[in-house]
């Protein structure tokens, strides 16, 4: 392609960016566990929005699109890392962070990748399993199973009071 069509004005991009940046960053950080890579993932997610030609039916639809796109962008990055790097020093990366990582957050970050989005949507965004299933295009029973398994891990590591 020689050129890029404009689907969104600068004002629209700025408005959407401010509406979702916190959520997109939280999702990306929960997958990638360091600020530098999370910033890259945030940029890629919003670049996909800039190139996205269709319009959203509602703000909820827009939000769901960002949740799915951010998660997929991170999975894609992790997939590339698996292929190109044997390992990277997570302790060194997390020592560069600007916010405090408490025990709870540490346990959340250690959860297997397949539970990250589900746990974030359930605990932070307050969606129930049916709503999460709709957003992620999965069956409610799959989401209920994933939540149950993730909660079990959290309970084991943090105790009952944390949930």
């Amino acid at each position, binding site marked *: 392609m020689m050129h*890029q069509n404009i689907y969104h004005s600068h004002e629209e991009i700025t408005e959407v960016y401010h509406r979702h*940046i916190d959520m997109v*960053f939280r999702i990306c950080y929960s997958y990638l566990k360091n600020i530098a890579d999370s910033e890259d993932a945030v940029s890629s997610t919003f670049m996909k929005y800039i190139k996205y030609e269709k319009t959203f039916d509602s703000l909820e639809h827009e939000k769901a699109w960002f949740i799915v796109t951010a998660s*997929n962008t991170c999975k894609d990055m992790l*997939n590339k890392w698996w292929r190109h790097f044997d390992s990277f020093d997570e302790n060194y990366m997390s020592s560069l962070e600007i916010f405090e990582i408490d025990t709870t*957050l540490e346990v959340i970050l250690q959860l297997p990748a397949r539970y990250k989005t589900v746990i974030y949507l359930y605990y932070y965004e307050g969606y129930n399993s049916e709503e999460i299933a709709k957003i992620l295009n999965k069956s409610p029973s799959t989401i209920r199973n994933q939540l149950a398994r993730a909660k079990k891990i959290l309970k084991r590591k943090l105790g009952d009071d944390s949930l």
Partner: protein
Amino acid sequence: MKIKESYQKIRLDEQSQDRILETLLNSQQTKTQKNYKPIVIFITTFLFIIIPLSMKKPLMNAEYESSMSQLYNLSSDITLDEMKKYDFYIQTNHKTFHQDIMNSFLQDVDNKISSSIIIVHLTIEGDPILQDIHYTPEKTTIYRDASRDRFGKSSEIEILEFNHLGVLENNLYAYNENLHLDTVVDENIYHITYIAQK
């Protein structure tokens, strides 16, 4: 509650937020300016890149054959290492082999040129499932061979037909009507594979 409070700590500072937004807006501007590149650049590109590319035959995608799938001739004992010697797009749990074949196939689909590709996935137990995708602008035929899956039910090659082939969010789908985030759960939409990159 503790979990929600912990999530709240994950926040990008204002300065970084502004920096990313500025980069995004600038990148849109830069790319938009390319619309007005002089015609000379277009002609040069056409002469030196597009013409040679269009003359170059796709290196590795199999010649499109409307008849039978190559899967029928494959040994039932074939190993993963042997498959790697073929021009198959292979996805294991941590690695992808022959990404260039997938890229070439997707380019053919973009250009509405009949093409085919054999995709290999591994089950959790490590058994290969093969899909031979035959694309034409009119229809897509998928030959799905799960006979090497020890825990699967199918011992024969299954044949599926769809009207279209498309990529959505780094995933390749075959479908009959619409391909959209809202419709990927429809029965008429068939998920073929995750694409690491295009």
